[in-house]
């Protein structure tokens, strides 16, 4: 039992991760390639199941809220009905069903696009505050930010054609180089954490036992 609960998940991780990683390097023996191919295909299926977890969790959360009469619990009915009704429609009548598409085009899409666009307003106020030459770091941020802003649309070009070249230079050299440095650092960080899983030393994802 203890083996099934804590050791097996870790060993499966070691096997899965090891095969997929070695596949990058190893030409022979061929079974490494075969295992890696199978594991990737299986994981696609598991990920498909994982996508449905959200709907179940959401139902659990909102039925709890209704039961406990938490704050704004009345709205939880809307969520619960939407989850059950829309999922049933999509699974029984298929995603290509006209009603499903109607809701997707006229409720889901505008909601999603509008929520996402709030970003534009928030970034304008955030930059209004952040782009202030409070200290030397912020000053560097400000200068490079304003140059790129002016250089990346027509209006900057109309003011001074040089903004465009300067922006290209900033994007191609200082920006690209600093991003490369950060990417390399992050890649090593990812390697460190991933190897903890592949070598079977990580337990965080199993509830920290």
């Amino acid at each position, binding site marked *: 039992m203890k083996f099934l609960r804590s050791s097996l998940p870790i060993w499966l991780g070691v096997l899965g991760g090891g095969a997929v990683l070695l596949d990058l390097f190893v030409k022979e023996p061929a079974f490494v390639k075969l295992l890696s191919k199978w594991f990737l295909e299986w994981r696609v299926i598991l990920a498909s199941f994982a996508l449905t977890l959200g709907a179940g969790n959401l139902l659990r959360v909102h039925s709890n809220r209704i039961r406990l009469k938490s704050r704004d619990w009345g709205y939880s009915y809307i969520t619960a009905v939407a989850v059950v009704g829309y999922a049933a429609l999509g699974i029984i009548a298929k995603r290509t069903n006209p009603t499903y598409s109607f809701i997707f085009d006229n409720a889901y899409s505008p909601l*999603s696009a509008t*929520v996402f666009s709030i970003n534009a307003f928030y970034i304008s106020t955030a930059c209004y*505050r952040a*782009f202030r030459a409070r200290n030397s770091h912020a000053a560097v941020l400000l200068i490079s930010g304003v140059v790129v802003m002016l250089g990346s*649309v027509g*209006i900057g070009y109309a003011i001074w054609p040089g903004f465009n070249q300067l922006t290209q230079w900033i994007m191609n050299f200082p920006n690209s180089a600093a991003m490369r440095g950060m990417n390399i650092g992050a890649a090593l960080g990812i390697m460190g954490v991933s190897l903890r899983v592949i070598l079977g030393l990580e337990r965080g994802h199993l509830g920290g036992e």
Partner: protein
Amino acid sequence: MEGGILTNLQNIDRRIIYTVVFLVLLFPMFKPIGLPLKISQTTQSAFDAVENLPNGSLVMLTTANAPGTAAELEPQTIALIKHWMKKQHKIIMWPSAAEAPRFIDGYAKLLKDNGYVEGRDFLVLPYLAGGETVFGSMANDLKSTFSMISPGQSALWDSITSISDVDLLADCGGGESQLWAIAHIEAKHRTPTICLITAVILAVRQPYYTSGQFKGIVSGLNGAAEYEVLARVPGAGAAGMDAQSMGHLWVIFTILAGNFAYFATRGKKSPGGGQ
């Protein structure tokens, strides 16, 4: 009194900023100004990568387009597909994210309206969950990843054996998918890869363009407008550019005004976040 105005400039109420953003974006939509457009090097390279392929090549579009990012990605994708149609390329399309299939429906319709036959000239692969895993799986074995498509179902599908038959891969999205495309497919098969991205992630994808892992990048609405000009396919990209420029100008103005006020009143304490 003057100090009052300066302090106010330093702390303009966010609702005022929001209202003006709305207004300045709206104005050029009614009265286009026609500001000049400069083609960037990354877009030019992406265009060249498509243009230099012989007519009738096999191209693949993997897209993670979603309602949230469609304002930027949709005009780019349409411009690219129109260019592909001009070159009579055979097209494989695959939605890499759960919100993308609805967009692919639209591209399929566009292709059909222009005489493309599904299964022979273009093909839509079904959505599969797993993100990066699917890219890894496609790089290992494309045919087996989509083994649900039976032989005889599509002539185009039957004519290919592996992802290395693809002459150009275009990945579209605002997330990590471009990285997966180069990390698994380009890395293994050296498939020429371009990406269509939201302008936000251009900065972090630039190093991969410099290193040649991407053959070209189309980024943001201005990337779409540039591509439309290069491929001579008028579209929605150019239309939004004026509004963007005006909105931009307003944000630059608030930033400069804020700084001016900050320096004029330096020494007095002002609230605000950031580092």
